[in-house]
């Protein structure tokens, strides 16, 4: 054990950074640690041909998958999945076919699976077992599979590996834009996954469904139309969700809930999405990315339902949970756009610094103009901004929300006027805010007073609005509330960080054992004290030891 730990650590730090140049070295320590993969043969060729290296990279992931099954630890599968983005650039039918051929043997029972995989990339006539891939399959760990029900033969490929290859095929088909083919293949793959009940497959199958629904989204007719294939896959996804819940498969559960929500929202089935949220429970320990997506969709639903406070909460969490590196700029842009609109709807003015972030600046420009119009309370500017950017807003799906902002603009306008003038005639208000008539102005101002937007009174006979003196903010509960909010946010952050910490399995048993030992030692000591043959120095030393 102690000898193995440092090797593992080194491996860990390598995968976290994954500089492309080092990938060639990656398989080596993995092989050393397990002693089952002999990759050294490929080493000299790696610098020559990227395709060969890609094949080697793919195969190096099999070791990780093997280890995931053997140790029953999903982290290794996740690591294999993470490496897909690196392999992705070099994927081609030949690379995939090579990897498949090397892995499967013509005689084995799983050769039909291999044939299916091969036909998906259009290389059905490549013969299996040519590359004598025996080195891959012969590993002592596969025997020790914890899924005790199925006793694997030593030569059998573990399903994780063929599903992993399936995902690679999906990725390739997606990049090659053959969506229809991809959807068909995904259907086959997901059917196959459903027949397998292995917990080590969870995070892989989540990925499979993800690509499945992605393919369907891209097949004509495109989503907003009710004939889009995404409507047709809903029953499949719902069935998958049910199975995942029954099997306590949190990865698939989280990912399928998110997919379904996305699916419903694409066709604007808000009610169904809302019902889905209320009838399911999003797994607590889901992957961070899935949580971020889920929160975004939830925020969207709540915003449409006018529950802005909740929407704001969810969207803030979503933007904070979004990965800060460059890989998810699109997500944080979309989430931030929606967040800005919700903030405006709540009557807040978003922070100007939001618009200055380099990754967001361009995308948020229309929203910046919008915020400016709302902030000043200029109805005319507001209308022109909407008219100018209607297409962008419609594409972002924020258009209907933005149309609701009109009343906020008017309210802000009234508030500005009430702050600047101690007394102003309704006619002036009407002209400045471009309202239809004086009567409208009167009703609107009265409503604003009732809603607590401004502190003022109206005089109907003389037709003016008289503002009340503005009180001292520090005499109200406002600062206390702001303080409370911040403290709550800090405490929540602390709690979440504690939760996010990873504790080694079974460590507490060790501690229990230690505690027991300590207790025994204490008892002994007490006994010795009782017997009187223990002097003070001895006692002090022992206490230090504890």
């Amino acid at each position, binding site marked *: 054990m102690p000898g193995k730990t440092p090797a593992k650590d080194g491996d860990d730090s390598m995968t976290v950074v994954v500089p492309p140049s080092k990938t060639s070295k990656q398989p080596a320590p993995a092989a050393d640690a397990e002693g089952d993969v002999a990759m050294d043969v490929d080493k000299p060729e790696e610098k020559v041909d990227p395709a060969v290296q890609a094949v080697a990279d793919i195969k190096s992931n099999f070791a990780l998958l093997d280890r995931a099954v053997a140790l029953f630890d999903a982290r290794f599968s996740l690591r294999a999945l993470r490496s897909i983005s690196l392999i992705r650039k070099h994927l081609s039918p030949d690379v995939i076919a090579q990897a498949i051929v090397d892995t499967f043997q013509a005689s084995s029972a799983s050769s039909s699976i291999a044939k299916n995989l091969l036909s998906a990339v259009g290389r059905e006539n490549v013969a299996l077992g040519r590359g004598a891939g025996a080195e891959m399959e012969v590993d002592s760990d596969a025997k020790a599979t914890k899924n005790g029900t199925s006793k694997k033969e030593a030569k059998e490929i573990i399903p994780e590996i063929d599903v992993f290859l399936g995902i690679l095929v999906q990725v390739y088909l997606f990049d090659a834009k053959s969506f229809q083919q991809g959807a068909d293949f995904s259907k086959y793959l997901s059917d196959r996954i459903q027949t397998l009940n292995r917990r080590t497959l969870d995070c892989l199958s989540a990925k499979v469904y993800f690509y499945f629904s992605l393919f369907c989204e891209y097949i004509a007719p495109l989503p907003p139309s009710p004939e889009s294939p995404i409507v047709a896959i809903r029953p499949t996804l719902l069935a998958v969700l049910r199975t995942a819940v029954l099997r306590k498969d949190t990865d698939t559960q989280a990912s399928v809930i998110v997919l379904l929500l996305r699916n419903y929202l694409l066709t604007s089935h808000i009610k169904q999405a809302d019902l889905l949220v209320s009838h399911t429970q999003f797994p607590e320990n889901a992957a961070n990315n899935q949580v971020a997506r889920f929160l975004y969709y939830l925020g969207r639903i709540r915003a449409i339902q006018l529950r802005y406070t909740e929407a704001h909460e969810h969207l803030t969490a979503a933007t904070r949970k979004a990965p800060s590196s460059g890989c998810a700029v699109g997500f944080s842009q979309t989430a931030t756009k929606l967040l800005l609109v919700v903030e405006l709807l709540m009557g807040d003015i978003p922070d100007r610094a939001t618009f200055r972030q380099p990754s967001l600046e361009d995308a948020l420009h229309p929203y910046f103009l919008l915020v400016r119009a709302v902030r000043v309370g200029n109805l005319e500017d507001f209308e022109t901004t909407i008219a100018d950017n209607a297409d962008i807003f419609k594409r972002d799906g924020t258009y209907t929300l933005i149309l609701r902002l009109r*009343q906020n603009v008017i309210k802000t306008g009234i508030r500005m006027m009430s702050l600047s003038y101690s007394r102003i005639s309704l006619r002036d208000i009407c002209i400045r805010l471009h309202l239809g008539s004086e009567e409208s102005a009167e009703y609107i101002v*009265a409503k604003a007073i009732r809603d607590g937007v401004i502190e003022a009174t109206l005089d109907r006979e003389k037709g003016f609005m008289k503002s009340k003196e503005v009180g001292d903010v520090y005499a109200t509960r406002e600062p206390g509330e702001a303080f409370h909010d911040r403290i709550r946010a800090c405490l929540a952050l602390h709690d979440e960080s504690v939760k996010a910490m990873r504790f080694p399995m079974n460590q507490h048993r060790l501690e229990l054992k230690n505690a027991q030992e300590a207790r025994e030692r204490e008892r002994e000591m007490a006994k010795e004290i009782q017997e009187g043959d223990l002097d003070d120095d001895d006692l002090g030393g022992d206490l230090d030891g504890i």
Partner: protein
Amino acid sequence: MADRSLAQILAQLKQAPQMSYPEASALLSKAKLILLSLNALTPTSSTPPNLLALARETYEQGALFSIRAKNADAFTRYVQQLQPFYELPSVTLPPNIPERNKVTGLSLLLLLTQGRYAEFHSELESLANRDGGGTDVEGDRYLGYPVRLERWLMEGSYDRVWKAMKSSEVPCDEYSVFSEILKNQIRSEIASSSERAYPSLPISSTKSLLFLNSEGEVIQFAKHRGWVVKEGHIYFPNTAADGSEDGAYAKDVSQMIMENTLGYARELETIV
């Protein structure tokens, strides 16, 4: 055979919109029985298109009749049943856009008068994606009306709502069913905002403010709301209420601060 008698019933219903509700509902239930025997109550992939159109028309007529009879529950039921028909692609069932928008507009208005804004907006969101001419929601005669009303109600231009209900802007007879409900709604909205906004109001101008017909009605309304009428002016009894509210408010604040502080202490203890 069966679908011919169904078509007959529908023609009968369409010709006489002023038919009494019990008569109409008798005819409608007959029509629904025929639909049931034809297995076309809900659309399936095997249902022939002409039957789909007939089924849809039956529900639409049912919806219109029940709204004329002010039977909101029955109307909602019909609208729910129509939903799967409206979702069908235009290839299977060519949409009858004016009729569809009429029913949808009515259901929007119903949601609005019942104050179910969340559902109103969810519904609105899905309209934009409808097959065939659903894109211009505001420009549509039937759909634009409830959308505009909602916007005006939200920003507080009650006079526009009033005018819209009075004038010829009302798209068809069925829509005026809601006018009475909306009128009362607006009036109570105006009354509650006036209570806060004006120190006092002369009776004569209150009449026009609340869209009432005579000063007698104003006084009646004022009594109903518990306002004090003195020397031709209305005074709102809100100052007294404010005083007691302040006391409760102050107590509330100190209690809240105490609770918060205790909470912080507890949390700190768990952290340290």
